[in-house]
C-alpha cells in the first residue's frame, strides 16, 4: 500500500509537464536561496497564487522544487563570498570560504550539492516511511526541551572558538543581548529599541549575517589590502573535480549519514528550524573526526556536514506538518497554506485519502534532490568563476547586493543601517580575533532559551516544582547529558592530546 502510493507519486513526478515545473521550481529555489535577503519562504509564498490554477499535485511538486533548491542555493554565496544565503548555511561558510580562498571553490560547491542531495534523500525516505511515529516524538518537545536544546546549541561555542574560549563566550553573550532587542516573546515588553518603533521587530538574522560575515571580508581583504581579486588563486573548474569530490565523500559515509540524521531530527522538532541543524552537525563532524584540526581551514568534510544537515532539515520539518498539520519551519507554514487552499487538511487524511498527492509531493522532493546534485555539480563551472571577477567590479556588486538584501528581507530601511553598523563592528572584532559565528549563534538561540525558560517557569510554578518540571523529563535528561558532555569535551580532547604527546615522547 505504502509502496504503491510511493510508486504512483513517482509516476506523477515523471509526467513531462510536472518534470518541467519541478525543474523551474528547483532553479527558482536556487536563485532565492543564493541571494541573501530572499528566502525560501518568500519564493514559496510568491508562487502560491500560481498553484491555484494548477492541479494540486503539479502545484505541490513545484513548491517542492523551490524548497529543495533553496536549501542548496544558500551554500553558493556562503562558499564564494562568506555570506550565507539563508541562516541555515552559516556553518557552510566555516570551511567553504577557506576552500574558495585556496582556489578550490569548485570542490566546495560540488561537495555542497552532493551532500545536499544525500541529506535530502535520507530525510525523504524517513519522511515517506516513518513519519507518523516520529511526529509523535516531535510533540514531546515542550518548553524545557527547547530550553535545553538552546543551551546545548550554546556549547557549540566552546569548539567554535578553540583559540580563546573567553572571547567566544563574550561574543556569544553579545549575540544573546542582540536577540533581546525588540518585543519580548513573552510579556510583550518592548526592550532596547532606543525610541525607534521599527526596532520593535527585533534584529533580523539575515541582516546580522550579512553585516558580520560579508562586509568585514570586503573591508579587510579587498579594500584594506587592495587585492585585485577576491581570492589568491584563480579558479580553473574541471570535470575531474566532480569525480574527486564524490569519491572523497564516499570515503566518509558515516559523516554524511550522521549529518543527514541530525538535520532530520532538528527539523522535526517544531520550530527549531535549520539554523541550528547545520551548526550542530558541523560541530559533531569536527568532534568525531580523527583530524579535527582540518576544520575551519578548508575541508570539504566541513561543507558536506553543514549542507547535508540543512538539506535534511527541509523534509524533516515536513514530518510534523504532513502528519499533524504543525509546520516545523516558516517555509513549511507556506506549504501548509498551499495544502489548505487545495482543500487538503494535513493529518491522517494526507496519508490515506490524498495519499497520491502527498506522495507526488514527497517524490517531488526526492527527485528535486537529484536535480540539485546535477545542477550544482555542473553549475559549479559557472558559479565558481564568479569569484574570478576582479575585485573592483565584484566588491561594489556585492555591497550593492548586501544593501538590497538587507532591505528586501523586511522592507525596512533601518535594517540597512543596522547591517552597516554590524559590518563595522565585525571588522573591528575580527581585527581583535573574535569570530562572528558565536555572535550569530547567540542571536539564533536567544529566543529559544528565553521562551523555553520563561514558559518552563510558568508551567513549573503551576505544577508546584519548577526544578523537577525542567529536569525530570526523558528528552530533557538526554539533552542535559549532551550539554555536560559537550561542555567538558574540549578539556577532554586537550588532555588526550597531551597524553598522546607524552606517549610519543616516551618512545
Amino acid at each position, binding site marked *: 500500500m505504502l509502496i504503491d502510493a510511493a510508486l504512483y507519486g513517482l509516476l506523477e513526478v515523471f509526467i513531462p509537464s510536472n518534470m518541467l515545473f519541478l525543474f523551474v521550481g528547483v532553479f527558482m529555489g536556487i536563485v532565492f536561496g543564493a541571494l541573501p535577503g530572499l528566502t525560501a519562504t518568500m519564493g514559496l*509564498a510568491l508562487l502560491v497564487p500560481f498553484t491555484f490554477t494548477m492541479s494540486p499535485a503539479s502545484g505541490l511538486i513545484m513548491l517542492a522544487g523551490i524548497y529543495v533548491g533553496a536549501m542548496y542555493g544558500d551554500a553558493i554565496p556562503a562558499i564564494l563570498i562568506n555570506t550565507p544565503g539563508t541562516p541555515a548555511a552559516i556553518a557552510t561558510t566555516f570551511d567553504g570560504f577557506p576552500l574558495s580562498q585556496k582556489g578550490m571553490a569548485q570542490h566546495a560547491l560540488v561537495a555542497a550539492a552532493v551532500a545536499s542531495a544525500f541529506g535530502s534523500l535520507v530525510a525523504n525516505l524517513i519522511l515517506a516511511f516513518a513519519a507518523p511515529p516520529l511526529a509523535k516524538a516531535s510533540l514531546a518537545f515542550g518548553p524545557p526541551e527547547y530550553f535545553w536544546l538552546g543551551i546545548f546549541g550554546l556549547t557549540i561555542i566552546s569548539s567554535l572558538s578553540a583559540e580563546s574560549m573567553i572571547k567566544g563566550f563574550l561574543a556569544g553573550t553579545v549575540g544573546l543581548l542582540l536577540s533581546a532587542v525588540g518585543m519580548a516573546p513573552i510579556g510583550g515588553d518592548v526592550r532596547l529599541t532606543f525610541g525607534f518603533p521599527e526596532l520593535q*521587530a527585533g534584529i533580523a538574522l539575515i541582516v546580522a549575517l550579512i553585516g558580520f560575515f560579508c562586509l568585514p571580508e570586503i573591508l579587510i581583504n579587498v579594500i584594506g589590502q587592495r587585492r585585485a581579486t577576491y581570492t589568491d588563486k584563480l579558479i580553473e573548474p574541471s570535470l575531474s573535480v566532480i569525480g574527486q569530490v564524490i569519491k572523497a565523500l564516499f570515503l566518509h559515509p558515516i559523516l554524511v549519514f550522521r549529518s543527514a540524521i541530525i538535520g532530520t531530527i532538528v527539523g522535526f522538532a517544531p520550530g527549531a528550524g535549520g539554523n541550528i541543524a547545520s551548526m550542530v552537525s558541523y560541530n559533531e563532524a569536527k568532534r568525531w573526526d580523527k583530524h579535527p584540526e582540518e576544520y575551519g581551514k578548508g575541508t570539504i568534510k566541513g561543507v558536506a556536514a553543514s549542507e547535508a544537515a540543512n538539506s535534511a532539515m527541509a523534509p524533516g520539518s515536513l514530518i510534523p506538518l504532513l502528519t499533524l498539520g504543525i509546520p516545523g519551519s516558516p517555509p513549511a507554514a507556506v506549504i501548509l497554506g498551499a495544502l489548505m487552499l487545495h482543500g487538503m487538511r494535513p*493529518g491522517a487524511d494526507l496519508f490515506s485519502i490524498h495519499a497520491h498527492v502527498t506522495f507526488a509531493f514527497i517524490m517531488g522532493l526526492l527527485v528535486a534532490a537529484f536535480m540539485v546534485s546535477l545542477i550544482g555539480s555542473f553549475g559549479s563551472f559557472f558559479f565558481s568563476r564568479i569569484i574570478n571577477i576582479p575585485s573592483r567590479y565584484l566588491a561594489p556588486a556585492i555591497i550593492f547586493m548586501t544593501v538590497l538584501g538587507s532591505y528586501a528581507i523586511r522592507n525596512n530601511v533601518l535594517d540597512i543601517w543596522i547591517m552597516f553598523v554590524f559590518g563595522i563592528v565585525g571588522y573591528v572584532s575580527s581585527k581583535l580575533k573574535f569570530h562572528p559565528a558565536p555572535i550569530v549563534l547567540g542571536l539564533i538561540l536567544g529566543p529559544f532559551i528565553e521562551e523555553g525558560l520563561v514558559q518552563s517557569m510558568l508551567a513549573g510554578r503551576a505544577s508546584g516544582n519548577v526544578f523537577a518540571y525542567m529536569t525530570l523529563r526523558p528528552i530533557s535528561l538526554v539533552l542535559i547529558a549532551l550539554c555536560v558532555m559537550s561542555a567538558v569535551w574540549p578539556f577532554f580532547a586537550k588532555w588526550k592530546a597531551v597524553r598522546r604527546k607524552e606517549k610519543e615522547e616516551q618512545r
Partner: protein
Amino acid sequence: MKRFLVILLVLTSLPLLAGSSQAEFPEKAITYSIPFGPGGQSDLEARRQQPLLEKYLGVDVIVQYKPGGGGSVGWAELIKKKPTGYFISGINIPHIILQPLARGNAGYETEQLQPIAFFQATPIGLAVLKDSEFKSLSELTEYAKQNPGAVTCGGSGTWSGHHIAHLQFSKAAGITMTYIPESGAAKSIASFLGGHVQAVWANSNDLVQHEDKVRVLAFGSEKPFANMPDAPTFKSLGFDILASIDRGAGAPPGTPADRIQKLEEAFLKIATDPKIMEQMKRDGFVPLAMGSEESKAYIQKMRKAWEPVVKEFKK
C-alpha cells in the same frame, strides 16, 4: 521676471490639477502591505484576494511584507504613507486596538488607521484534548476555583486576542489560571497537542484542523460556530465575552472618502463572492463583509470592552 515665474508655475500645475480631478482612481499599481511574514494567514488571505482585486480595480496589486512587533511595525509605516489610496495594509483586530493600549508607544494610534473593510472573522475558542478530564467549561472553572493557578492555558502572544480572552474569562468566572504564551499559533497548537498545557486558546481554523483530537469548551463568537455547531459559546454559558481575530484592510489617515469607497467596494465584492465564502467556511473561518463605517463602529465597541481589562492587568 516674477510674473513670468508665476505664469510658468500656473501653466505647469494646470495639467496636474486637471489630471487629479479627471482621472479615475485607481490609475496605477496599488501596494497591499502585509504587516506579518510570508505564509501567515493574513498573507494567504491577501494572496487569495490579489487576482480578484486586480480584476475589479483594473490595476496591478503588489503584495509586500513588513513584519515585526506583532504587526505594529507595518502599521507604524502605514500611517506615515501618503493618503492617496495607493498604499494600503492588512489590519487585524484585536491587534490594532490592544497594541497602543498595552505598549504606550506602538508607533501608531488605533484611530489613525482608516478601515476600508473587514472580510474574515476567526472566532477564538477555549479547548482541551479529547481525553482531558474536563468535559465542560463548568468542570474546568470548578477545578480552577479549587486549585488557583494550577490550570495552564496556552495561547499565542501577550496582549493578543488569546491573552485578552483569557483575562476576560478568568475575571468573569472569578478564577485564576496560568496563561503560557507562545510566539505564534502553530507553536501554541504543537505545545497543546503534546500535552504541555492543559487547555488552549486557539483560532477556529486551527481547531477545525485538529477537530478529531480536541474538545472545544466554548467559542467566543456571537452565534454557534458553523463548523462545530455542538460547541457552546461563552454567551450561551452566561459569559459576556466576544473573542475573535478579524482580518481587514486599512488606509493611511486622511485618505479621501471616494477612494476608500472604491477600495471598499472591491473588497466587499470579493468577501461576498460565494466561491470565496465557501473556501473560507471549509477552512474554518467565518466570512465577514463589514464596510468602512461599520468597521469603525466595531473597533470602538471592542476598544471599550478591552480598555478596562488591559488597565486592570497591566501594572
